[in-house]
């Protein structure tokens, strides 16, 4: 569903991303790496808000070179940025409905789809509350609801669990597994637990390049040695892999 070939993004002389090759089918895929590794840049390239300098990107079989193709993909895309901005006067329901309209959903389907999305993130009871009056965690869940309102074929989530309490994280991971059954879900995160419990594959990014492609199970196996730093096996595996490639 997503195919990336020799992708590169530059800023001045420094390479933010370089030689990224990635093929992502349906399922839940984690992009894991330290802060500043280039995860958000990669997500923004996939979300079509940032143009890459070298290489090629195809989402659902179409590249972003032509405006028509880009809009076709955008209709089938869901995106939760790291810091979602929204019009302060929106209620949670209006916010989700507005994004549904921007995604060119049939207007008669939008109210039901918005309520369904809000129910899936457990926010339907606060649907008529103004966004600015919701807590940080609730605003994050409203952000998730807008990302899934159009039942996207490709869902891009940048640090989606930031601000969620432990119970909400568990619910969110269950939702991810449900979504990943027939969509391609890409999560950028620096939280190893999110990857451990929700992802089918994990791609480790450091210094703008891919250092490893693996599965949560394999990463946990690498961290079986209790002498490595980290609180869990997968955290130790993550640290060990990064050290090997640095």
């Amino acid at each position, binding site marked *: 569903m997503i195919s990336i070939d020799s992708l590169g993004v530059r800023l001045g002389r420094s390479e933010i991303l370089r030689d990224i090759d990635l093929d992502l089918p349906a399922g839940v895929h984690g992009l894991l790496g330290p802060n500043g590794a280039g995860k958000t840049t990669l997500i923004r390239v996939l979300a079509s808000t940032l143009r890459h300098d070298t290489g090629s990107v195809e989402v659902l079989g179409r590249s972003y070179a*032509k405006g028509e193709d880009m809009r076709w993909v955008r209709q089938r895309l869901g995106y939760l940025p790291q810091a979602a901005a929204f019009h302060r006067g929106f209620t949670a329901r209006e916010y989700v409905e507005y994004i549904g309209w921007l995604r060119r959903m049939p207007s008669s389907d939008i109210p039901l789809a918005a309520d369904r999305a809000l129910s899936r993130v457990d926010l339907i009871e606060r649907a008529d509350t103004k966004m600015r009056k919701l807590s940080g965690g609730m605003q994050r869940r409203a952000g998730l609801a807008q990302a899934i309102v159009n039942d996207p074929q490709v869902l891009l989530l940048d640090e989606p669990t930031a601000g969620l309490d432990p119970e909400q994280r568990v619910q969110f991971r269950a939702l991810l597994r449900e979504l990943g059954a027939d969509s391609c879900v890409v999560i950028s995160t620096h939280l190893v637990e999110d990857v451990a419990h929700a992802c089918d594959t994990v791609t480790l990014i450091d210094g703008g390049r891919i250092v490893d492609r693996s599965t949560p199970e394999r990463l946990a196996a690498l961290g079986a040695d209790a002498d490595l730093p980290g609180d869990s096996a997968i955290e130790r595996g993550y640290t060990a892999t990064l050290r090997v490639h640095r």
Partner: protein
Amino acid sequence: MSWHADPLALRAYAAGTAPDSVAWSIETHLSGCAVCRAALSHHLAAEDRDLLSAARARLVLSGPAVSAGLLGTVGRGGWVGRLSRRPWPAVRSGVLGPWWAWAGFVVVSSVLLGLASLVPTWRAAVEARADGLVLLSPVLPVALVAVVYAVADRGPVSDTTPRGGLELVLTRTAAVLALTVPLVALIRSFHGVPAAAWLLPGLCLCVGSLALGSWVGVERAAIAVTTGWVGVCVVALAPLRVRVSMEAVLVQAPWQRLWWILLVASMLVVLWRRDHFDIRGSLQSRHRRMSL
């Protein structure tokens, strides 16, 4: 409800094999017992569940018909009801920002202009400044487009949507024009110049700022065009001879031809660069823009 239907009877009812007397009894009971309705759903065949689910969705979408005839056509079950179940309030807020601010702006401006035309001393004061108002009026929609971009939704999510590019730009501009044309017509009425003479320069400045916006962003372009036009007006108003020339620029025939040419040229630029409204700069270009 103190009793619940026998599971075997429910299964027979779902399969359509229950005797009439049992079926009637179960139907009466089901209408008041949520527990048995839930139990019944487990005995339904998959296709029946899908059928009921689809019927429920249709009912929720279409709503109850109030009555037949004219009331049914326009009432809650008719086109009024169907329109009210569309996401228009959300779209309005996303496209224009807070509706009450725009409603207040139009009402207060209209009332003030109306009062000014009725109260002699106010009318005299407005007429004394009418030249300035007339010269500034073409740029009012452009200035309001800049305001819309400052107050309405402009989050990173909108930039990744198919409607977030040119379509949203045109929707916002059309909404602003719909709000401002009546107001400008009122302003022009003080000067005795037909509103139609303003429309062409006003539209031209609007589309021109959109064309420029395909390079620098609509908000920046609208601010630049507004500032530029206000600057020209300030300079033009100083000596009387040039002021008269500015009025000619707005309404006289040879200049109107030039406005037409500029309008068509701006529209062609917008059409040619339509994909550039889908915000998708490189990190390099964004960095350059940020450091401007």
